[in-house]
């Protein structure tokens, strides 16, 4: 994408029928640090990579609880993400107050998408520079949606956004068929593996990632560092041994010992910078 005369404002179409400002906003999402989400029939797990600017600072919050049954992970302009999370929390709490019932996640996602669309059709606004992975439960089960700056939304079994997300996506594509019936713990392990893919060689430890879970009978919550480290240790033991790559045939096993780690960090899939 190169600079051209049709990209100054969002209300200008290019002759090819593109809105460049919207596409540039989607670039901002790709620059943010990775966030991933995956779901089974009853649970959804969100994970993200947290890189602090320096050793002295804390890392940015990228996962937000929106309500007991909905949470969101963001990638891109975190300030925009924070503002949208506040909007989502507001919508949820207003619905809960009026109807004493949780807002169905499918409806929240449409409202969010409509809000993003407005910014693509006003000359005095700019699109939100953040991609949101919305995880939530409603009457029809567990759902994972991705909301883009363009105002589109899609439902996914598993997805990854942000920088080096292609590595995670490739891992998820290999494994997604087992997710629907996976147990909660296996889902979390898969999330950690997917995050490891995006780290490209760096050691996976609980200080660089955040994991959150929501499921039937389990309100949305972020797992604490100690628990996450425990889970990492539980499967990483075997991970270094590069067992035959955990290809699609492999059953997700509950015992850490039997775990054949995914392609060992640094090997296999080369990141594709989009």
């Amino acid at each position, binding site marked *: 994408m190169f600079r051209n005369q049709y990209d100054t404002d969002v209300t200008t179409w290019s002759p090819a029928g593109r809105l460049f400002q919207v596409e540039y906003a989607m670039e901002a999402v790709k620059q943010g640090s990775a966030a991933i989400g995956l779901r089974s029939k009853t649970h959804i797990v969100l994970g993200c990579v947290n890189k602090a600017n320096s050793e002295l600072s804390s890392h940015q919050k990228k996962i937000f609880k929106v309500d007991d049954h909905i949470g969101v992970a963001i990638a891109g302009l975190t300030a925009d993400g924070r503002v949208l999370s506040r909007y989502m929390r507001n919508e949820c709490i207003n619905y809960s*107050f*009026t*109807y*004493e*019932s949780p807002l*169905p996640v*499918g*409806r929240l996602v*449409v409202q969010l998408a409509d809000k993003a669309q407005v910014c693509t059709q006003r000359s005095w606004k700019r699109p939100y520079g953040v991609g949101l992975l919305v995880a939530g439960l*409603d*009457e*029809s089960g567990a759902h994972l949606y991705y909301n883009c700056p363009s105002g589109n939304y899609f439902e996914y079994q598993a997805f990854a956004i942000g920088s080096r997300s292609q590595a995670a996506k490739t891992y998820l594509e290999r494994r997604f068929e087992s997710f629907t019936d996976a147990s909660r713990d296996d889902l979390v392990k898969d999330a950690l593996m997917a995050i490891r893919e995006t780290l490209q060689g760096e050691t996976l430890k609980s200080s660089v990632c955040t994991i959150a879970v929501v499921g039937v009978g389990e309100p949305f919550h972020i797992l604490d560092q100690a628990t996450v480290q425990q889970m990492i240790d539980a499967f990483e033991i075997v991970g270094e041994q590069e067992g035959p790559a955990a290809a699609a045939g492999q059953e997700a096993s509950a015992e850490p010992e039997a775990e054949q780690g995914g392609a060992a960090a640094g090997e296999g899939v080369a990141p594709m910078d989009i």
Partner: protein
Amino acid sequence: MNFMASKQPENSLLGPESDSQRTLYPYVTGTSVVALKYKDGILMAADMGGSYGSTLRYKNVERMKAIGKHSLLGASGEISDFQEILRYLDELILYDNMWDDGNSLGPKEVHNYLTRVMYNRRNKFNPLWNSLVLGGIKNGQKYLGTVSMIGVNFEDNHVATGFGNHLARPILRQEWHENLSFEDGVRLLEKCMRVLLYRDRSAINKLQIAKITEEGMTISQPYSLKTYWEFSAFENPTQGAVGSW
């Protein structure tokens, strides 16, 4: 010459509300509604009378209506306010349907929505003069609740409005139990409605019973209850009375 105190508040001080009136009293009213949970859902009964003060003026008023796929609303009190509530709910259900997704508002949601409406109106000193009964069943879960004109709301296994609270609830407390069959439920409701017919002067002998189950809502054709007036106590009512009246 302002020494005569005006009964009306001065229009200018009220600002934008100066030309509207607040509800002071109801005009055309419906009497009790009684409802109970039974095996397959909810049964609700109400007569078809619309009183104009002490005159039993309208005799074909349907005081129970289906709301969406899962709920049934019965109302006592001002009939025109009930019609207004039906319009609000119609719009609510319409917007719910327009989402066209797998979700729908169940009886719990409708009940809470109504509670908010009634309470908000009460806070503005302009109440909808009704006592409402909202029952329904969704995904196997039965729900039965009530909201008053001041926003008091609660759920229970059996509810009633107005005189029904005094005459029907005690009977229900004695005789209601879980998993009533349809026939037993109807019999119990008829027992309550008969007592109301004898003792509530705004009741008329023309009632409907509505039921709501997972399959949907059905409402009976209007019918009347058999009554018996040959009790010896009625023959010479003042016989044992003490006092000048």
